[in-house]
């Protein structure tokens, strides 16, 4: 699946998009998996309260299942308008 990062998530991790092969069942498991990879991931995912997630371009929560999902995006709370 494609994993996308925006704003300071993108800056901290250093990439805006990557392909991830994962057995994670939920978003939360994916986050744990990514956090274990490297310190920059751990740092980016350290404060879960200030991270939002979208699954296939719809806002979701961390317990959402990943089966069949093509695109997961992580980003800080939005500041549009």
């Amino acid at each position: 699946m494609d994993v996308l990062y925006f704003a300071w998530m993108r800056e901290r991790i250093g990439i805006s998009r990557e392909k991830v092969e994962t057995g994670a069942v939920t978003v939360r498991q994916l986050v744990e998996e990514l956090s274990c990879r490297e310190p920059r991931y751990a740092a980016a995912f350290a404060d879960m309260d200030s991270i939002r997630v979208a699954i296939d371009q719809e806002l979701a929560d961390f317990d959402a299942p990943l089966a069949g999902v093509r695109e997961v995006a992580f980003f800080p709370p939005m500041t549009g308008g």
Partner: protein
Amino acid sequence: MEVRIQREPFDLGAEANAFSERQSGIGAVVIFSGIVRDLPGGELEAMEIEHYPGMTERSVAKIAEEALNRWSLGDVLIIHRYGALKPDEMIMMVATSASHRAEAFQSADFLMDFLKSRAPFWKKEIGGPRTGWVEAKREDEDALDRW
């Protein structure tokens, strides 16, 4: 209903007139526009607006449709820019039309609250001591509870 997500500037006045002129039988138009505010001391070089292509268009269209469902509106227009904007440049606008003023006001207010916290845009201030990502405000999130 019209939604435009674009890098290019837009002309508020031209959009306001075109929107008003294509309405018929409506009595009230409300237009909101958001402008890049400089930092104290004129230190802002640019406001960089990042977005999530694809999701942005979908989520903004969904917010517009929700407004059309909740109120009896003539029309809704939303324009939102991304990229590097200078102080005093326009970031975005919404326009709503309705038979009565209360509906036009409420729906524009609603659109702004949801665009602020539910459309995937992120602002970064470049220049000045506070250079960095604009933090979402608690009050903006709380504002959603009004609806």
